[in-house]
């Protein structure tokens, strides 16, 4: 008896499903009735195809005469797994490439490379970092990639005097802790936020920007910086949480605010479903995210919706440097990603120190402090807090399902 009933229920469900979806299937253009108020965001900004490389860039190979003990080790600490693992993977592949090139050119100095997984989680990062500082052979570290975990572990490095260069953590407050071992190989969000705001209003011609930030140190810092720089161009703001999957309430607020552009300060794990749901609800404007969103995973997870997206990033498009691109591909079996080249450059700074005989933690730290030379992506010279002088912010867009650089923004 139940079986009959179940069958009829299934049939009713099928019919109901059918009635409701009729006609939906063949539409691929934007919805006609449910659109956001203003039609913003369809500004065409051409992609660029090359970037300038400093001619005297220091490369990992050095002069080939490096001598060091066989135990000399540099470490990567950061995400290898976890929801935002891809950014970490981009970085350690960059480091791996630098080390491979160095070791191939310097038979007298074979530097070891060790990776420590933090999952990008501030709560989990202290364990691996404590492990790193206790291993005496590790004299320099590239990491940590994210702002939250960097904040949580900076003191541990500081206590043991171990130099660490972050290739991607952008929260401005990280250099305000009085740490002497922390160096940042890119611009911070006090640079990125205003650059993003200028990009939104001047390039994308956004009149009404809705700012959404997540609950990470990075998202809060960047959201605040961008909101301040946007001033009256911001029509509203909202906050979401790490791990959130449903954004319907935020989206209905955005639709009601008639915003023409959404700026999201956070990582791609949340940005992808957010953008996807936003477009599904009929939003036709642009979606702009920072470096934490700029990743192929974002496009993969947001699908078609991602074609409305732009990114800002204090990172250099390494894929446009042919020598780097082809070598990176051999190591990683993939195109260089966000921060691959920053990871490579950061490792190069440490490796060139080792080649110059700076083979203790104290010597290598002093080396980085006094460093003043070009890397592949930019000039590296840090001030006393560990910030670079005038780093560039690049814009990117999604074009045919790929991330394409559109040049320096915010100037």
């Amino acid at each position: 008896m139940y079986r009959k009933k179940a069958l009829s229920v299934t049939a009713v469900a099928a019919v109901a499903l059918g009635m409701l979806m009729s006609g939906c299937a063949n539409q691929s253009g934007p919805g006609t009735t449910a659109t956001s108020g203003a039609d913003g965001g369809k500004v065409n900004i051409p992609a660029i195809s090359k970037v300038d490389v400093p001619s005297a860039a220091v490369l990992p190979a050095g002069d080939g005469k490096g001598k060091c003990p066989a135990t000399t080790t540099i470490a990567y600490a950061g995400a290898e797994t976890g929801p935002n693992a891809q950014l970490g993977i981009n970085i350690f592949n960059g480091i791996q490439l630098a080390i491979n090139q160095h070791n191939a050119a310097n038979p007298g100095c074979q530097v070891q490379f060790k990776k420590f997984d933090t999952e990008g989680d501030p709560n989990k990062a202290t364990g691996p970092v404590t492990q790193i500082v206790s291993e005496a052979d590790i004299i320099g570290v590239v990491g940590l990639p994210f702002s939250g975990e960097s904040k949580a572990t900076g003191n541990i490095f500081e206590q043991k005097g171990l130099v660490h260069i972050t290739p991607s953590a952008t929260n401005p407050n990280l250099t305000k802790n009085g740490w002497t071992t922390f160096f940042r190989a890119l611009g911070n969000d006090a640079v990125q936020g205003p650059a993003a705001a200028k990009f939104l209003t001047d390039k994308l011609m956004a009149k009404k920007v809705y700012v959404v930030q997540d609950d990470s140190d990075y998202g809060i810092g960047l959201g605040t910086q961008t909101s301040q720089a946007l001033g009256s161009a911001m029509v509203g703001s909202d906050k979401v949480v790490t791990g959130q999957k449903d954004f319907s309430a935020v989206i209905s607020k955005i639709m009601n605010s008639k915003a023409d552009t959404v700026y999201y300060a956070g990582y791609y794990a949340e940005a992808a479903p957010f953008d996807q749901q936003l477009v599904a609800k009929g939003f036709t404007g642009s979606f702009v995210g920072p470096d934490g969103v700029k990743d192929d995973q974002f496009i993969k997870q947001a699908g078609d919706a991602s074609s409305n997206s732009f990114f800002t990033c204090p990172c250099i498009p390494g894929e446009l440097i042919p020598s780097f691109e082809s070598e990176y591909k051999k190591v990683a079996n993939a195109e260089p990603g966000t921060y691959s080249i920053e990871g490579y450059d950061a490792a190069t700074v440490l490796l060139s120190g080792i080649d110059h005989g700076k083979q203790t933690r104290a010597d290598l730290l002093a080396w980085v402090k006094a460093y003043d030379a070009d890397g592949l992506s930019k000039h590296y010279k840090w001030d006393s807090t560990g910030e670079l002088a005038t780093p560039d912010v690049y814009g990117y867009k999604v074009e045919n399902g790929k991330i394409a650089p559109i040049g320096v923004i915010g100037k």
Partner: protein
Amino acid sequence: MISEAIPSLIHAVPLAVPTDDTWITFDVDSLAQNFWSSTFDGLTFGAIYALVALGYTLVYGVLNLINFAHSEVFIVGCYGVFFTLSALNFGPSAPHLPFWAIVGNLLLALVVAIIASALTAVVVERVAYKPLRKRKAPRLAFLITAIGVSFAIQYLIYWWRGPSPEAALTMFRPLPIFDVFGTIIDSQQLVIIIAAVILMVATDQFIRKSKTGRGIRAVAQDPDTATLMGVNKEKIILTTFAIGGVLAGAAALFYVMKIPSGVQYNGGFILGVKAFAAAVLGGIGNVRGALLGGLLIGLIGNYGQVLLGSSQWTDVVAFVVLVLVLVVRPEGILGSSLGKSKA
């Protein structure tokens, strides 16, 4: 001097949380403005919670066991949907298929999800709970086992599929259907709500009217007497797990429809916790309570979120209301009474 020192001291307190200064707003205007859209989104999610909550409630009713692995039964269903639709060439973009082909494909995905979830539920019962029952293990052992099974399945999936969510799968482009007080209801919301309500009513009727349903209620009321009266207790328990799995599988289809990139190894966890809360709110062990609780949890969370101006509050508000309700009615809104419900 002193008069200057005091205000600065007072200021020192909010500065201790320097992240941002407007983290609580109480925005009634925003709620009024977004009331209907919050309501329909809340109901859509509530319907999904309710379907999952039924699984918790049925098992609790029969075994007095909180089956924490139920969230993984649900996520296995999501993977079922994902693999079926991927194999059918669904991707991140809305498919260009004739309408009936989409309906057919979705029904196939529904069937696969239901089978996957039901099978998982039955295997969990047989492998994890039945041996404990045989040895008359204390209730705490069941609880710990349930949590253990939940993690085991999560990390099996993690080991197999990695930490990233699967690529988004769009089943169809939501089409605006009609307008309620200026809020557009789309086909997706309607499909989910209507299909879920049909399933809920069917489950309710099944428990109330069918022979197996009577068996389930009998075992819930008094397992020993039920056995004496000729009810096959083991078979009933297995059936109960299977029904929970079937509903979780259906919920999985709707969930992936709503959240195309939600298929992830731990993607069922929070949803499971909320569905469990829904079951408790309505009265655990009570089928209609689970339905009511699910819809309420969906609605309350959404209202709270809009009222307080941040998604950070969705879960907080939902759980605060849960606690408040339990203080007044410890049994839940409709009371816990699977066994007592009248035929």
